[in-house]
């Protein structure tokens, strides 16, 4: 089947309708804190069992990409990432909304998500087989160093004190160890509590650490939740497009980062968003204030997390290794459909695969009008809802969303307690982002470390295992650069200022 035939097959009314419905359902589910993209796909996947493979894949892809985008709504309007992929979106999205630029932030998130999604899907269309080799080149030790590299990004995420940021990251890593150990099933750090045996769910922790502090401060004061400009300004589309063009390098770089991180199994949109955000922050121009409502932060995070959709499908379809958690669910659905993933999928079932990829591209484009409309509606709802109704509504959504993750009341209690801890820590300069980063990267780091340690010990060459592989060395170099660059930049800046004064 030629590319044109696949495109025409994707453009049938049924496929267009499924793409539209998938994006709407995905965005709505992704916007609710606690309901992740994985859950959105998992909940809606049974509807695809009776469908032919190509429409089924298009529906799942549309739900997935819609849900990843939908996470930005609550991240911007409530400081609560709707999905873990939107963690970095909160850092500048919420400050923008608070100062009265919520409408611009929502439009920017939509545009960046569409561009990121398109770049990821185009990579899937054109470069899938060669790029999938990247996933195979990563062993346990590379994942360990990747997690350490992710932790080094704390230097970019820390507001004020790097020391506090690093301590917060270490606290998050330790909290990620609570519960039954994955490697050897020891019960760790529960101190006799049955509530903690199930461990700390990352999504519950995210909701608690980001949303509960906002609620605690929201209930205490009579003022408005978000500043609102009196005159209506519509979507502010032209302004958003202008910002996007100004920050085109950030947009493209973040989309490429998202695609590559999506290819790496287990990393996912949250890591992609944070890596792209920290890179945008590191290369900020004078006057750009990341963490205080800088549009570039939203562009980086949203383009990167939506690019992971296409990137994640590369190892899923070519190797049968899911790139991201929702890909694992889609992989299961593919097997139900009777499709065997692997290098031969593109030749044996090229008609289905290319129709799906075109369908994903169309769904991503459809996200533009749908996203703008839904975003506008969500923004209006939040700014018009009186605080007396907003506080209990958000509290209720956090509770039901957290419960739904594992059908566990313990998760709800943990979410609230972590929220209070996050609020206290936040008051004394320990930001939530590094703690959550530690929580997300903890399991990746531990699994990689223990596996690499075991293999290295068996080979009698621990140093070679950890420091002797080319990809590991490259990641270590990036890590050192990431940690050192803020200090070096500060020194250069001081020197330049001193020279200017002289």
């Amino acid at each position, binding site marked *: 089947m030629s590319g044109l035939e696949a495109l025409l097959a994707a453009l049938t009314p049924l496929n267009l309708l499924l793409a539209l419905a998938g994006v709407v359902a995905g965005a709505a589910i992704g916007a609710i804190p606690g309901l992740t993209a994985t859950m959105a796909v998992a909940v809606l996947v049974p509807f695809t069992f009776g469908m032919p493979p190509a429409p089924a894949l298009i529906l799942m892809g549309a739900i997935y990409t819609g849900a990843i985008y939908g996470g930005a709504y609550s991240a911007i309007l409530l400081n609560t990432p709707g999905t873990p992929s939107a963690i970095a979106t909160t850092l500048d999205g919420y400050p923008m909304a608070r100062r009265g630029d919520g409408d611009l932030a929502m439009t920017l998130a939509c545009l960046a998500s569409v561009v990121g999604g398109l770049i990821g899907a185009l990579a899937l269309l054109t470069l899938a087989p060669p790029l999938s080799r990247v996933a195979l080149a990563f062993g346990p030790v590379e994942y360990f160093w990747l997690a350490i590299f992710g932790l080094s990004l704390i230097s970019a995420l820390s507001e004020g004190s790097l*020391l506090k940021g690093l301590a917060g990251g270490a606290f998050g890593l330790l909290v990620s160890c609570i519960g039954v150990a994955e490697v050897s099933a020891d019960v760790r750090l529960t101190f006799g509590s049955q509530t903690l045996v199930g461990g700390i769910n990352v999504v519950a922790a995210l909701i608690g650490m980001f949303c509960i502090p906002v609620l605690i401060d929201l209930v205490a*004061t009579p003022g408005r939740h978000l500043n609102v400009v009196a005159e209506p300004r519509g979507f502010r589309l032209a302004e958003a497009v202008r910002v996007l063009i100004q920050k085109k390098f950030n947009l493209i770089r973040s989309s490429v980062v998202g695609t590559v991180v999506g290819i790496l199994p287990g990393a996912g949109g949250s890591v992609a968003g944070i890596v792209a955000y920290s890179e945008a922050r590191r290369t900020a121009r004078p006057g750009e204030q990341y963490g205080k409502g800088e549009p570039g932060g939203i562009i980086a995070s949203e383009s990167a997390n939506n690019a992971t959709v296409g990137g994640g499908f590369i190892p899923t379809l070519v190797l049968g290794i899911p790139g991201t958690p929702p890909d694992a669910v889609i992989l299961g659905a593919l097997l139900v459909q009777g499709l065997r993933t692997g290098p031969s999928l593109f030749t044996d079932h090229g008609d289905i695969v290319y129709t799906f990829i075109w369908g994903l591209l169309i769904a991503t484009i459809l996200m533009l009008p749908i996203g703008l409309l839904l975003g506008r509606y969500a923004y209006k709802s939040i700014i018009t809802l009186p605080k007396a109704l907003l506080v209990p509504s958000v509290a209720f959504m956090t509770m039901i969303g957290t419960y739904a993750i594992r059908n566990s009341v313990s998760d709800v209690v943990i979410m609230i307690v972590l929220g209070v801890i996050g609020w206290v820590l936040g008051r004394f300069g320990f930001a939530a982002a590094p703690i959550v980063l530690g929580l997300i990267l903890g399991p990746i*780091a531990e699994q990689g470390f223990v596996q690499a340690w075991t293999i290295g010990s068996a080979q009698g060459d621990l140093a070679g295992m950890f420091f002797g592989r080319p990809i590991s060395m490259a990641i270590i170099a990036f890590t050192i650069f990431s940690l050192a660059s803020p200090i070096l930049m500060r020194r250069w800046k001081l020197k330049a200022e001193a020279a200017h004064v002289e």
Partner: protein
Amino acid sequence: MSNDSGTTPASDAGAAIVAALLVIFGAAAVWDTYSYFDFDSAVFPRTVAAVLILLALGVLVRWLFQRAGYVSVSPAEAAENGGSWPRRIALVIVMLAAALAMPWLGFLITAIISFGVLLVIAMHDPWTPGRIVVYPIVGLAIVVGFYFLFAKLLMVPLPAGRWFV
């Protein structure tokens, strides 16, 4: 506390207390790792706990040697530092109580009661007759709407309540 010029003392005593608590948590974690059967389970948390202790000690040392001064505080930050403490505490207590009551009273009843109480806690404006009628109706619609979305559409098994089953 802010003064008139919008500045506040830069002493980081609160951060020092948090750092001390992190040292205690790290030490407790190290102690806990010695009860594990498998060394593989212990090596990662023990290493991380040691790093946490060192970093938290670093925060403490910096606090001990820091110079006193003043930092500027924006009006928004000042407003957040103030506000009603009873409302803050009530919010947390109601949410925790709702979570703990959920298995006994069931999700729907717990949600309706807690929504109502939180509505009263978050109400800063005067109660007009219109608000008395409209707000509970809107609240009920939100709770019931989300209940049906999760329980019926997404098939999440929400607690029915041990006292009613």
